[in-house]
């Protein structure tokens, strides 16, 4: 085990897998000589050379479109989109091509591309460096969507994603790139896609979240404890396919649930989770499910800490849900 932050853990995963599997290539804007805008790919260019750590032209559609061809040929491309806010020029390639290739070819082809991209706010980056578009990749059939919250999960999930036969959207919560630190297993290590983790056990209220908001939820849960509310906090880790069993098991225990995410409220992942709970655990509910999320506005610059569902917004929802 080694102490790492999330940037180091992702770098470690890429380095490990590129050594293990020569089909893996990294491509994107300034991922090579510069090592990426967040330094996630630092040192890989020197270690693996320009054919495997590729500085591309500034075109998201070109990066993702050529990665499709690489995957069809049998490579394992891991393109980086510098900020998920800039992913939309590649949206057609992702939702119409990558997500559909296996299906429309009758299973003859797979398209195992892992798209790494920083996500979320809280870095004073304004609208175009702060959004959380993950649900826009869930609503189109054919993509797995992952968002780790710890360095350990970042490494384990990235290795699992690169080895997956299907395409994976790998969202990296940039606000905790360096703030989240922890022990990370050395060498080969995977975390299964599709499995949530109970980060804190509790009996009164289930809190379901992921990414950078895990730490806000844990902070709120600690404060709720002082008010006599015992929270169970679940880190989804994989956003699609959801770990429905873990969600239902916890809600059946507590009967009360609050879902927290940065992304806008309407048609966000929390809406789907609440609908699933209504379908599968309705008779166990003791209180209306609550959502604490970003707002249905563009992501604001100056008021970003008002936009984010931070601990002080989560805490009252926990207490009110517990006492309903």
């Amino acid at each position, binding site marked *: 085990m080694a102490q790492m932050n999330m940037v180091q853990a992702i770098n470690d995963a890429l380095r490990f897998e590129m050594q293990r599997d020569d089909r893996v290539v990294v491509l994107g804007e300034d991922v090579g000589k510069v090592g990426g805008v967040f330094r996630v790919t630092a040192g890989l260019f020197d270690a693996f050379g320009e054919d495997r750590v590729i500085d591309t032209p500034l075109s998201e559609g070109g990066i993702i*479109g*050529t990665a499709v061809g690489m995957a069809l040929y049998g490579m394992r491309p891991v393109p980086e989109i510098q900020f998920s806010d800039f992913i939309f020029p590649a949206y057609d390639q992702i939702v119409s091509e990558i997500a559909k290739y296996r299906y429309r070819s009758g299973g003859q082809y797979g398209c195992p591309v892992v798209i790494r991209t920083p996500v979320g706010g809280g870095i004073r980056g304004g609208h175009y460096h702060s959004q959380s578009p993950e649900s826009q990749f869930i609503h189109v059939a054919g993509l797995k969507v992952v968002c780790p919250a710890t360095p350990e999960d970042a490494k384990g999930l990235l290795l699992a994603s690169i080895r997956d036969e299907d395409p994976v959207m790998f969202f990296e919560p940039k606000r905790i790139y360096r703030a989240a630190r922890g022990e990370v297993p050395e060498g080969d290590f995977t975390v299964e896609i599709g499995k949530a983790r109970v980060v804190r056990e509790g009996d009164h209220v289930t809190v379901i979240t992921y990414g950078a908001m895990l730490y806000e939820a844990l902070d709120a849960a600690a404060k709720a404890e002082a008010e006599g509310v015992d929270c169970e906090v679940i880190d989804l880790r994989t956003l699609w396919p959801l770990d429905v069993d873990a969600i239902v098991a916890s809600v059946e225990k507590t009967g009360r649930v609050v879902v927290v995410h940065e992304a806008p409220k309407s048609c966000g992942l929390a809406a789907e989770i609440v609908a699933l709970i209504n379908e599968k655990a309705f008779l166990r509910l003791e209180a209306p499910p609550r959502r604490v999320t970003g707002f249905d506005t563009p992501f604001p610059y100056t008021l970003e800490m008002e936009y984010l569902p931070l601990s002080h917004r989560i805490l009252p929802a926990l207490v009110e849900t517990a006492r309903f």
Partner: protein
Amino acid sequence: MTTATRTQDDQGTTTRGADEAMRQDVVRVLSADGELVSDAPELDEALVVELYRAMSRARACDSRAAALREEGRIGAYLGAPGEEATTIGSALALRDDDWVFPGLREHTVSLARGASVETFFHHLFGNALDPAKGRQMPGGFTARSLRIASASAPIGTQLTHAVGLAWAARIRKDDVVALAHFGERATSSGPFHDAMNFAGVFKTPAVLLCRNTGWPQASSSETLTDTFAEKGIAYGVPGVRCDGNDPLAVLRVVEHAVARAARGEGATLIEALAHPLDGPEGERLDPLVRLRNYLGLRGRWSDEAQAELDQSLRHEIEAAVLAASAAPAPPRTTMFDDVFATLPGHLRDQRDA
């Protein structure tokens, strides 16, 4: 090979027509009457006969498919009669290890790469024997074993795929070239720019074959340049023009581009000037007629051979249509397969509900 540039002669030219294909910078091998133009090299006549047969099969299957559409027996179908010179001529210029990225109009390329006529019609009917399991409208014929990619309806997306695959092959040091088919209107799309730029920067062994059927009428709404080939200049990718109704010109130009790519010299943009069959010059420039005239002049084709070919194609196609129309639709449960490599819980629930 010539790189298309705006020449003095072009200045002020406002009308285009059949003369366009006579321009010096447009590669031609056959005259409209099927005569060889003077500088043509020796041709492998057995290959030319094979090309003629393959084009005839493509035309016959395409016509039958269009009729099936008219009868309402298959879904939306984009026929491409008269485009066999580009679709089939380019296919025969490729080597077995090379890849094809067709659009929805070029699916007859599958017949030239070894797909059976019966399988072709199974696809058109979208039945349980369709290699793509009925997931795509007619034209999405996919065959990984023949190195044919899966076409989609968004315009131009396959261009970056071809460039990416060629790039991967180069990284792996494999002698493999990827060819993408597209129409001239795709040159306005974002992926055309992406593909050309990446192909130029990374010298990928790709061939981008633009079938220009829009000229002379439609081009002006698509571009201000005189040619589509000259768009390559901005990307450092040579642009070559050829007569797109001349299968031997397409064959030669694509062969040159493939050889160039295989030598590590990078991608080529080809603009094939193709008259649609239903256009004013279409019948006179029909690539099948031109090739038949060529073969006839050399004693390699006869009315008897034609009658025999027509009859065998008719039988083969009718048998295929019978088989395809009799085959069952894919079972309902297959709708949930292949979304992912393994069926996740939510799809299992939806399938079994």
